[in-house]
């Protein structure tokens, strides 16, 4: 998968897949991913810019994430959190999470909301 920013649920509620009577749109995926919080920072992984890509095919969610540094051991922790959050959604049958460091994460990927929460000025 090629890293791309996850569209904002508020502006791009794209329908990506679904089961009969159980549509799964990217907005729902996005909102579910926002419930996964980096415990150290108290900020969700979407606003931290840790989610590079999210898509759903045949009820299977494929999520590409990163960690803020390759030496960070939180990959499995976030993977479990993502699986736990997405499997609660109707229409999601399985979740694959891949962790990559290509490209490397940088603070530029943080949303304005995350910056505000972490006390950025200007």
């Amino acid at each position: 998968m090629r890293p791309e920013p996850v569209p904002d649920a508020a502006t791009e509620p794209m329908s990506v897949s679904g089961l009969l009577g159980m549509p799964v749109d990217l907005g729902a995926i996005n909102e579910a991913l926002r419930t996964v919080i980096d415990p150290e920072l108290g900020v969700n992984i979407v606003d931290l810019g840790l989610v590079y890509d999210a898509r759903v095919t045949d009820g299977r969610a494929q999520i590409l994430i990163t960690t803020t540094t390759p030496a960070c051991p939180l990959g499995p922790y976030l993977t479990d959190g993502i699986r736990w959050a997405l499997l609660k959604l109707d229409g999601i049958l399985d979740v694959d999470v891949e962790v990559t460091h290509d490209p490397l994460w940088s603070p530029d990927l943080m949303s304005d909301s995350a910056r505000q929460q972490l006390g950025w000025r200007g």
Partner: protein
Amino acid sequence: MIDRRSLALLSLGGLSLLAGLTGALVLLGLGMPTATTHLGTAHGLLMVLGFLGTMIALERAVALGRTWAYLAPLGSGLGAVALLLGAPPTVAGALLVAAGIVLVSMYVAFDRIEAALHIRTQAVAAIAWPVAALLWLAGRPVSAVVPWLVAFLVLIIAGERLELSRMGQLASRARLGFIGAGAVFSAGVVLTLLLPDAGVRVAGLGLVALAGWLASHDLARRTVRMGGVTRFIAICLLIGYAWLALAGVLWIGFGSTGGAAYDAMLHAIFLGFVISMVFGHAPVIIPAVLRVPLPYHSRFYLHLGLLHAGLLLRIAGGDLLGSHVLWQLGSVLNVIALLLFVVSSAAAVLQELYQRRGSQPRRAIPTALQREAVRSTEHRS
């Protein structure tokens, strides 16, 4: 599902912790059986490389995700077992040196992915591990090994905190400040090889500078205003920085002629700074390495409070005022805090696993018709 490989390695670290704590009780002169006397001698190595080293190496192995990386926690864990069993020092020493070299190799691998100051700071820390083990193997006194053990832990943690501080809009001037503080500390530690007294004092200056830098730039200053586990981690960190600064002052003031202050010079760092950090990060790291949930509970403040209260009693009442009873009492509280930490964390894991048994997220099994419907939907707009 629990990661059994990590569980086995973590168990070696846990065994080392229990042996190290037994060694602590021996050093406190609490009438422990003579069969445990050797654990008193090995207390420092068991706690720093056996317990903390195994934990840290396991964290990094999980992060790197390569099989060979797990040789680091395996080596330190087995080295601790060798110490525990009273095996010849060459066996334990060789295992500990080898484990340290594997950790250094991990940082070479990390550096190839991300060549950054925070990675290189931790790489320097990793180098201090095998140096400490080699000094011990060469029969150097514990006081000569300790600065390297401290360097391993302090620089690893400082590197980690530097990495996270990037999320707080870190200015380039602040990075230079970090480099300066780290360089002074590292230079002091190296100097202890030739001039122990001067080296310890210079390293102390670096410790004060690092503590000041961390207290000024760590995100914990902001996240302490949040709630739950985030606030708990921040409180653990901020208290730890105060102990690190105190330790630095003691290193500057007493040098290698610590005497009664020696106990305070070491434990302000190992317990006040490092173990406080371990308590804070356990709810994050344990789930990361074991793949089991460890939800935060407010009761975690109990072992944190016992740790710092015990340390205060030990240093103020025991080391400063010279009361042997208060020194013993404070130290026993430290041991209890660590044991309570283990029990409380294990209980939180088991409690959560029990509760989750009945509330697994529903995973629908699609019918053939549903599968067909899904295939016909678009992949992504």
